[in-house]
């Protein structure tokens, strides 16, 4: 069963003494049996999305187990050109956003613009939800029809809200990784369908093993497990 991880990072983590270097990411993917990881350079998160995206693309060309995801910091996105269209042309397969690290929210109109441009460019967007906020609802309201959003990094507290968002937005998907209450995987398969769930483990910041085993041990079909562990993400990104 192929395992594809939608949520990987590499670079430096300035806030704490954490090893999130590229070698650590590659080692973690191997240890966990993850075939491919969709990754973003943290240079693009903490320094400059222009520099970071260039680094991500370079690294992914050198390491076939990595798939490039771009990022854009809305605080620095003032060009009148569509950057998502350019990123898609360059070969990026996804856009991942980082509001918590960069200090902005889904209320920022630039975010609405980015989501619209991603919809036009056919570039899926991973947007972090977190624990207690109504971010999922906000994204559900502002994303243009056809914008394929992965509600990412969402915890069990935000599951009910995000399930409702996915009921209203058939093109949205949900990342499982922190949806770690007992029976959560079975619940999500029943309520929104296994075909709308993708694995995301936040490698190498987090351990990841529990998230994978939770899916393997879930009381769902082998076909659904394969879809969540990798099939759905591959289909979303046009085959990886």
């Amino acid at each position: 069963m192929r395992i594809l991880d939608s949520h990987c990072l590499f670079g430096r983590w300035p806030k704490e003494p954490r090893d999130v270097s590229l070698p650590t990411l590659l080692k973690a993917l191997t240890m966990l049996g993850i075939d491919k990881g969709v990754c973003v350079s943290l240079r693009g998160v903490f320094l400059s999305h222009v520099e970071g995206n260039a680094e991500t693309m370079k690294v992914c060309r050198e390491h076939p187990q990595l798939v490039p995801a771009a990022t854009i910091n809305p605080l620095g996105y003032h060009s009148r050109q569509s950057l998502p269209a350019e990123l898609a042309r360059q070969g990026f397969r996804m856009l991942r956003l980082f509001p918590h690290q960069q200090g902005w929210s889904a209320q920022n109109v630039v975010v609405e613009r980015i989501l619209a441009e991603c919809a036009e460019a056919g570039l899926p967007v991973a947007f972090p939800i977190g624990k207690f906020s109504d971010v999922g609802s906000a994204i559900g309201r502002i994303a243009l029809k056809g914008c394929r959003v992965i509600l990412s990094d969402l915890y069990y507290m935000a599951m009910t809200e995000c399930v409702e968002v996915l009921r209203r937005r058939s093109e949205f998907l949900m990342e499982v990784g922190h949806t770690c209450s007992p029976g959560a995987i079975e619940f999500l398969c029943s309520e929104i369908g296994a075909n709308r769930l993708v694995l995301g483990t936040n490698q190498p910041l987090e351990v990841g093993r529990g998230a994978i085993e939770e899916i393997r041990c879930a009381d769902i079909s082998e076909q659904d497990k394969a879809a969540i562990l990798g099939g759905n993400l591959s289909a979303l990104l046009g085959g990886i």
Partner: protein
Amino acid sequence: MSDSVLSRLLPGFEVIDVHAHVGRWDYPGEAIDLDGFRRQTDRIGFAKVIVSSRTALSYDVPEGNAEIARLAEADERFHGSVIFNANNYEESCEQIERYADHPRFVCAKIHTCMGLAVNAPQNLRVMELLARKKLPLTMHTWTGDGPAAADAAKHFPDLTFFWFHALAGDYRKAAELAKDLPNVCLEFVTSTQERGKVEHLVQHFDVNRIFFGTDQSLLNPVYALGPIVEADISDADRRKILSDNARRMFRFEK
């Protein structure tokens, strides 16, 4: 055991879960009642589980503790943790008196969801009784709770404290603070599973005072196993964390 989750993830290791709950949470997923808890324990393969009540934690202390007594009396794998809410001193003392000498209860528990800091005067007052009863106290400790938790531990040097969640995002601080407090033990479960946390605690704290807990039925115990399965530590240390320390602390016979 042979078909359990543990037999695949941690073959040859016994596991004692010192941090578990029975009851319903307001999140999607399976509501774990007493029968469900037994089935889940069968499926995972834990040798022993120390359980407190979600009902007691959030609403009715006597009703919840009584539920735990029924569970623990009916199945030798389960041991009780008596919850008290120090907003009600008389009830807290009555519950501790009732369960401290109960053969199936091995510790007490408080949670900051009751609106009191762990070192609030109301909690310290009840801790005097726990210290007299020599009943270890487990408590929810989260990011920012370090000074209050350390203060409580210093008030009662003869009372054993378990800092559940090991101060969450402040786990490095937990190791630093608790290192010089010999009456403090750490349990490290959180839904955010930072890579390197277990290794850090083993390296910078005392492995004889680190315990394994899952926070089931809030969290999926399979998920909670991830960090200890992946931790880059010796099997001897893994064994201490998973069961040896708990057997020693709670006098569980083999």
